[in-house]
């Protein structure tokens, strides 16, 4: 059954690809987190993960000039989808970055976004093909650790 916005309050954002527009997403996350009474720790983790997902979407969907972000306010979690219409990628093929191998080598110092998103959120999934990418990331209200 598809959830409708009537049942699950959803904030939706469409962002143009302009410098620092990911901050619109973090500001939105801030208000939504406060509404859901999330701790500032969880709220900060969400914002950081969101920045990384937005930056990736911006970088890889330049031709489309916009990305979409959905904040789905559930009883037990906040689910965020970051959607771009870019070229897509194979998320399983992304190498796990490692500072040791980056330092004093020719390796690019970048490549941390996907790892950070996974570390900071409770669950993360990627749907991606040549029409674009949807990153779905979930922050649970309760700590289950």
């Amino acid at each position: 059954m598809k959830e409708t916005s009537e049942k699950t309050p959803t904030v939706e954002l469409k962002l143009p690809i302009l410098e620092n527009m990911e901050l619109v997403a973090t500001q939105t996350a801030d208000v939504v987190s406060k509404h859901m009474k999330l701790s500032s720790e969880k709220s900060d983790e969400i914002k950081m993960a969101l920045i990384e997902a937005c930056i990736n979407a911006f970088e890889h969907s330049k031709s489309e000039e916009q990305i979409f972000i959905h904040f789905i306010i559930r009883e037990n979690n906040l689910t965020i989808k970051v959607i771009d219409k870019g070229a897509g990628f194979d998320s399983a093929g992304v190498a796990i970055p490692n500072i040791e191998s980056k330092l004093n080598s020719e390796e690019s110092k970048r490549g941390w976004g996907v790892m950070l998103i996974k570390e900071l959120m409770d669950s993360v999934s990627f749907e991606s093909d040549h029409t674009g990418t949807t990153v779905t990331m979930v922050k649970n209200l309760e700590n289950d650790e």
Partner: protein
Amino acid sequence: MNSIIGTDEIGDVIVISTQGYLNKDLGEEIFALVEKNISDGKKKFIINLAQSDIVNSIGASIMIEIIEELQEADGTLAFCTLAPIVEKTFTIMGLTKYCSTFESQEAALEHMA
């Protein structure tokens, strides 16, 4: 929106203070300032991020470039007054294995002395 708000020379330590989003632009500004000071013979650097409570991985990866520069120059880098999420990000990325972080600028200066 984001910028370097101060560069202080305290003893032989260069303290760089920032405000706002530590993104690519601000990262590159800090990098350029460190490089210039290295070429002036400076070796000890503190980056005070008290007023930068938001970072992205591109900005953070430029901090890795700074660590690399300082390793080559036989220098040291410390960060101070990090927001919890910035500290967490640096820890996940492993930066904190190559430079110390301090709760206050005073503590960082003491360590460098």
